[in-house]
């Protein structure tokens, strides 16, 4: 089982929100609504939205990075025209959100939200800055490893995915109940991007590669 369970008591927020009853499997037939989903096209997304370092008066503080990868289905086929939405903290670990009480500075040159559509080969690419780790109140001295939140639409509602991308070698992995909620170690490691020198651009930005595999679409040829 690749996905975390609903109830993971180490992550306190799950205790009153995790459903306790068994899930009911959708009785699929070819007309089942969840086998379809919203379709996006190039007119829906401005290519400038994939560069989170632009659109402000100046350059954001922090380590400039490129995050790119392929969106694939379980059969390994690329998923083109997938809408990819991301959001993240700034380099100091602070979100542009009224609920974020972390006493770290906001960056007037960084909002931290971006979108793009995958190309014909299922590829996405963002330019951003490396987010900082940040504290939260789950337990004493709780810190989230640096991460970028990702939201994806595939071909069908069954493929809808919201997840988080992490950075290699983060010392906080062992202490993070959200990362640790994924029971299978190999599945967990799928959330960690790889540093990639070929993606890295000289004198400009470090490159990370992270491929994303979406759930199956029943009735589709696998």
């Amino acid at each position, binding site marked *: 089982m690749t996905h*975390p369970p609903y109830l993971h008591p180490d992550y306190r927020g*799950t205790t*009153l929100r995790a459903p306790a009853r068994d899930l009911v499997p959708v*009785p699929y037939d070819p007309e089942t609504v969840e086998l379809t989903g919203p379709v996006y096209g190039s007119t829906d997304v401005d290519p400038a939205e994939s560069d989170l370092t632009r659109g402000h008066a100046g350059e954001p503080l922090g380590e400039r990075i490129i995050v790119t990868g392929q969106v694939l289905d379980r059969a390994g086929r690329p998923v083109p025209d997938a809408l990819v939405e991301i959001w993240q*903290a700034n380099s100091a670990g602070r979100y542009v959100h009224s609920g974020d009480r972390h006493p770290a500075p906001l960056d007037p040159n960084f909002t931290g*939200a971006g979108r793009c559509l995958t190309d014909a080969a299922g590829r996405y690419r963002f330019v951003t800055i490396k987010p900082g780790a940040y504290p939260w109140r789950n337990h004493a001295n709780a810190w989230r490893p640096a991460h970028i939140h990702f939201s994806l639409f595939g071909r069908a*509602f*069954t493929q809808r995915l919201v997840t988080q991308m992490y950075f290699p070698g983060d010392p906080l992995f062992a202490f993070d109940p959200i990362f640790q909620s994924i029971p299978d170690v190999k599945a967990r490691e799928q959330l960690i991007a790889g540093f990639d020198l070929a993606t890295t651009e000289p004198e400009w930005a470090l490159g990370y590669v992270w491929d994303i*595999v*979406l759930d199956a679409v029943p009735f589709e040829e696998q």
Partner: protein
Amino acid sequence: MPTPSQTVGPFFHYALPYEGGPETVPPGTPGAIVLHGRVLDGAGDPVPDALVEIWHPDAGFGRCPTGADGEYRFTTARAPYLAVLVFARGLLKPVATRAYLAPDPADPLLAAVDPARRDTLVAAVAGPGEYRFDVHLQGERETVFLAY
């Protein structure tokens, strides 16, 4: 192996909601309906930081964050049912359900569900062209959630 899900967290509000997200058809469209309701936790308290998405090919896609009272509100088109996903802090993966506007007892999902829990999938008529659909994440009235 599919990429595992992680929680949407509490800080998505400046990224995921968008103008017009709660309106899958323009307000005033003939035949448009309003679907609203609350997301509630196992203690019966409102979930003020959830994101609700609805989808039906005839109705379109909608996205609405819940407010302080746990309430969401869509303007959408009539369909036999809407597929519903709820994301929130504390949900490591979304909950999936359906809001039936016109429940047909022969519907394969409704037929498969324990009759005592079937009404958790049915949106209540709240007025002309207005439906109410509460999502109970947990507890005695826990909504029937689906495995995709």
